[in-house]
């Protein structure tokens, strides 16, 4: 295992400080120290979040119900699943067709079939994604940190040259980018803990190597020049000022990262062809590959997304069935391979992999079964066209999450949804607060970890009340 020698001493004295706007440009994190009551033993060092952006229907993926094939003139209300069910490694547990590879590795992890998304009136991707990633419902009067930022802040990097919070696959140019940016942030924890964005994994190396067109030799010389000029600049005049020190330190850190051997982990061209081909189902698959490579070199939190783009990918407002065939192709091979590779290299034990989505989908029900929601997808009662065949409405009362490694039980199924519409959670509902607290618990971050922001406590989960679901652990 990679020792986390750079890990912060996260059990601090509860010397609470206040963040507020300081004119001196005092970094927020300087005046912060986390408060929590006890130390817990960790079962994971690294978290990989596989994000199914846009709302992944549970009945067409990991929780299939009765299959009704497409025929013209069919009744929409009869359709619960638009795919056949296929067996998995677990007796009596079936996945939707197209997810066979993941099915085969379910003996290595836990399948949660009882995720319940929050009720926030309108069922909107922007708000639910914000909620899933920060554990807080927008808007907030202070800027809430992404879960990756919390983890980066509490634990620091595993390997100091690999940024603690890496976000792979999301561009901010496809629509609703402001809503996406609103939670891709370290919020009040300060920029230092923000995401290191790699929008395109195949160009990942560019982010961690010297500028385009610069040889390593020149890069080294440039750095040397900088250091020489720095030590000869009017040093006396500026003393060991804190801004100067912090700039010098950061530049040095960047230099070390950019020429470190670990940077090669970002280079997917180094991957053997056989393995590369299995991962190469598109950006998401290559993101999984990069996540694996970084985990092997010591990463803390990596998010790999299928990418959110309004009405694209998992955001199926039409042609749900047809499009899911493609989506499953994107994820099935890479996710299964990722788990197997991590297991083979011995990293799975201390790496928690989570596959999740902001909410589920259903053909008929938008939001909760008993609610009518504005702006829901128009779904004809009688289907004539295949474009209306699929799960197109946003559903919050049930959903699936996968978890592997990091101390999570193997071959376990948690929770259950009804077999008839509405296919809502009927056993062991689990909300985002519990999911977050469970992740923090695996990492050894105490459940009442919080900071005082403008003299108000701000916890990892609202009011620190998120409960760990211990049943998910071995």
């Amino acid at each position, binding site marked *: 295992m990679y020792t986390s020698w750079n890990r912060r001493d996260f059990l601090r*004295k*509860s*010397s*609470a400080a*206040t963040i*507020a*706007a*300081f*004119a*001196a*440009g005092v*970094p927020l994190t*300087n*005046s912060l120290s986390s*408060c929590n*009551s006890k130390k817990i033993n960790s079962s994971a060092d690294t978290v990989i979040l596989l994000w199914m952006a846009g709302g992944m229907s549970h009945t067409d993926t990991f929780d299939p119900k009765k299959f009704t094939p497409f025929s013209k003139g069919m009744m929409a209300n009869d359709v619960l699943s638009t795919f056949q069910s296929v067996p998995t490694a677990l007796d009596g547990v079936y996945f939707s067709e197209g997810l066979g590879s993941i099915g085969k590795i379910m003996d290595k992890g836990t399948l949660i079939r009882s995720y319940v998304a929050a*009720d*926030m*009136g*309108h069922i*909107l991707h922007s*708000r639910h994604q914000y909620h899933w990633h920060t554990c807080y*419902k*927008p*808007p*907030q*009067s202070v800027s809430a940190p992404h879960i990756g930022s919390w983890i980066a802040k509490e634990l620091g990097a595993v390997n100091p040259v690999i940024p603690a919070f890496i976000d792979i696959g999301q561009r901010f140019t496809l629509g609703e980018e*402001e*809503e996406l940016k*609103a939670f891709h*942030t370290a919020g009040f924890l300060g*920029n*230092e803990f923000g995401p290191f*964005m790699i929008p395109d994994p195949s160009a990942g190396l*560019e982010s961690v*190597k*010297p*500028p385009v067109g610069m040889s390593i030799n020149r890069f080294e*010389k*440039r750095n040397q020049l900088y250091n*020489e000029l*720095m030590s*000869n*600049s*009017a040093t006396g005049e*500026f003393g*060991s*000022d*804190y*801004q100067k020190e912090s700039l010098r330190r*950061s*530049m040095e*850190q*960047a230099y070390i*990262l950019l020429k470190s051997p670990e940077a090669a982990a970002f280079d997917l061209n180094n991957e053997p062809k056989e393995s590369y081909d299995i991962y190469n189902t598109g950006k998401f698959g290559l993101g999984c590959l990069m996540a694996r490579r970084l985990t092997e070199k010591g990463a803390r939190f990596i998010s790999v997304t299928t990418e959110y783009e309004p009405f694209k990918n998992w955001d199926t407002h039409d042609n749900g069935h047809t499009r899911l065939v493609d989506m499953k192709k994107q994820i099935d091979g890479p996710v299964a391979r990722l788990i197997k590779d991590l297991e083979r290299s011995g990293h799975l034990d201390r790496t928690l992999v989570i596959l999740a989505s902001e909410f589920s989908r259903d053909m008929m029900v938008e939001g909760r079964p008993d609610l009518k929601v504005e702006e829901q997808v128009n779904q004809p009662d009688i289907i004539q066209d295949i474009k209306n065949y699929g799960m197109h409405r946003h559903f919050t009362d049930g959903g699936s999450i996968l978890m592997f490694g990091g101390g999570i039980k193997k071959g376990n199924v948690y929770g259950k949804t009804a077999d008839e519409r509405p296919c809502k959670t009927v056993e062991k509902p689990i909300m985002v607060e519990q999911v977050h607290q469970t992740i923090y618990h695996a990492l050894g971050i105490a*459940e*009442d970890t919080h900071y005082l922001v403008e003299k*108000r406590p701000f916890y990892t989960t609202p*009011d620190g*009340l998120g409960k760990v679901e211990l049943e998910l652990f071995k």
Partner: protein
Amino acid sequence: MKISTKKLFLRKKALVVIGMIGVIWLLQLTFSGFVQPASATPTASNNFWLWQFFGRLHPLAVHFPLGLLLFAAILELITIRNFSSHLRPGINLLVIAGVIASIFSAVLGLLLSRQGDYGKDLLGLHQWVGIATVLSGVITWFLLNRILVTKKISLIKYYRGILFFCAAVLSVTGHFGASLTHGKDYLSATLPWSADYTGTKAGDFNLSSFKNDTAQLTKKQEAELNVAVRAILAHNCYKCHSAEKIKGDLRLDRKDMIFKGGENGPVVIPGNPGESEIFRRITLPANHKDAMPSKGKKLADADIAVINFWIQKGAPWTEGVEKNIFRVAELQPRNPPLPLAPENLTNPLDKWTNQYFIKNKMSWPQVVDDRTFLRRVSLDLIGMLPKQEEVDTFIKDNRADKRALWIKQLLNRQDDYATHWLSFWNDALRNDYTGTGYITGGRYEITDWLYKSIRSNKPYNEFVKELISPTKASKGFIEGIKWRGVVNASQRTEMQAAQNISQVFLGLNLKCTSCHNSFISDWKLNDAYAFANIFADSSLEINRCDKPTGKYTNARMLWKELGTIDSSAKKSIKRAQLADIIIKPSNGRLYRTIVNRIWAQIMGRGIVEPVDVMDNEPWSQDLLDWMAFNFQQNKSDIKELLYLITTSNTYQLPSVGFKDPNKIILQDYKFTGMLRKRMSAEQFADAAGTIIAPLFYDSMVMYKPFPKMGDYHFARASLVINNSFLTALGRPNRETTSTGRESQANLLQALELTNGERFNSMIGRGAITWQKKYVTSDRVIKEIYSQALGRDAQPKEYQIAKKLLGDTPAIDGIQDLFWSILLLPEFQIIY
């Protein structure tokens, strides 16, 4: 040899003692030896309940030998001159009882060591010295016995020596034992010089500081303690025990209610935590049926300690005197008469500084030279580095009042000035070209209004008025950001308006208060709703912690004495009324807040810090009051204020560096001059753009206030859409108001500067231009030092640069030189 009965009796006892010691050794051997006692896996026999029970009596039993033997030693010391004092029989009894008790304790201790998760090093130590205690105790007894029987006076000194030794070892044992129970740093952590010192920064509740004090708490301490307790109760108990939900007939949010208790009687017995039901409940194990909180997590140990201490101290509840708990700043304006000062100090601010310096026994340093001054004042007023020609002209300018004249000139560069201050106001008013809410019509931009207002130097009172009682162009601030769907009651747009107006214009935090009564001020939930009602069509239902209460309140200004709002009026009328009230000259708070913000922006630190907490103590009340009063009198003219500040010697003092930013914000801060600031994202981008090549072009400009970009060939950073470069350098996403920026560098920022595409391609473009323009290396070196750093390269620097460039500079070389210079702290810091 004849043996007396008494002797026989004693001898028997001695045998018993020796037997017991034997038992201890035997136990030691049986239970895995005492070198690694705790690491051994407990066997079934070790876990037998009775042994466990006895074992747990150890912490109780140990107090007997401690008390008895120590007291025996003390009495022995007192009677050191007279062995046969009348205390003799008592001492003898104490010794005997003490030794027996120590043997029992040792046995119980061994049983206990089988159970707990004790660190083995400390446990080992504790055991060894424990055994030593028992042995020395037995020897003491033996010697004492010999003396009493044989009357051998010569043994007395040995007996006494070994008794004192025994007492000493016993104390050590006790210390290790206590360390096992309470933690090693239990005692030492309270010492100020300890690394584990739990004392905290100003403003935090610090229980240990109370405990070190004498028994009697001052009124202020009582109030602070009570506030801490109420914060704990509010966050852990109010959910079920306050106005909205009164489980078990118990309310903990009011003095009368908390002391009345619940359905089972009183919960707090002042002075007696042990008898207090509330203390019993919060200290129960989490799974106990009586444990509180019954839902949610157990209270933190620190919180429990505070409750315990509070009850011990008689559970003070300081209603009535609340007004005195928190420092509350004066609302009324005040115009203190200017102090006398030497004739050369004509600027009124300097007279105050002079008085401050005298009071603090400081002397006036020399003001900075012309070059430093021009660089500083240009960056501060218009956000740009001065051009080389400007610096030269300025230095050559012989007019006595040239600094004031140049400041005027800078302030008259209206577009440059407005473009710079636009960033400051965009942050504060959370206005941006893009952001959440715009796509769904839940948010409005105010850029055009804002830019024009800054450019025309709109009087600040009108500026505020137009934001609160807005036109279409300025409504974006109070309309807030509306997310579709259901949002938390404390985040509806009316409440956002209340929070933002109080924070930005009044330096007051209403965020706590919009959810529940504040624990950090005297403001109440009601006050926040009354204020928010001004922005609502009809009164809002009061929600406490997002739970509807069914109650309503009127529309009201936070300070009633400033004026009244007509609750029944339309929203637009109420807002207009508020606007008139808030800008009244008698609202000293509005004017103090803005002059403090501007001062902080220029001087690197406010007179009051944090700038959003105007109730905090200023380092000079007179200076703040005088400036605020005269600012208001002087038509609330921001440019005049900037002129006043920047023309002062106070501003022109040498800048002050600091190592620990946390010290800067302490309330005992001493002003010695402007604090060094790091350039903002925009200042840095614009400065680089001035010298090297544009980072942003006209095509990226989101707001075009003027057709041509002034004298510059690039777009100023404050006018472009936020991007990864600006974000990395600290431009906030303007989802919430932000009144200060981080000036600390970090890895993500350094990466953006080291291999970021935008920055490196800018350098690349600049290198081409420079190569054509300056041709020789000497010229390039001379120009970059003079344009970027405002000075010539020193010989050493010249050598280094020349070595890189050779005689004729290549593009690569110029690029690398640019990069190194732009990243020098000397370039990035405003000094």
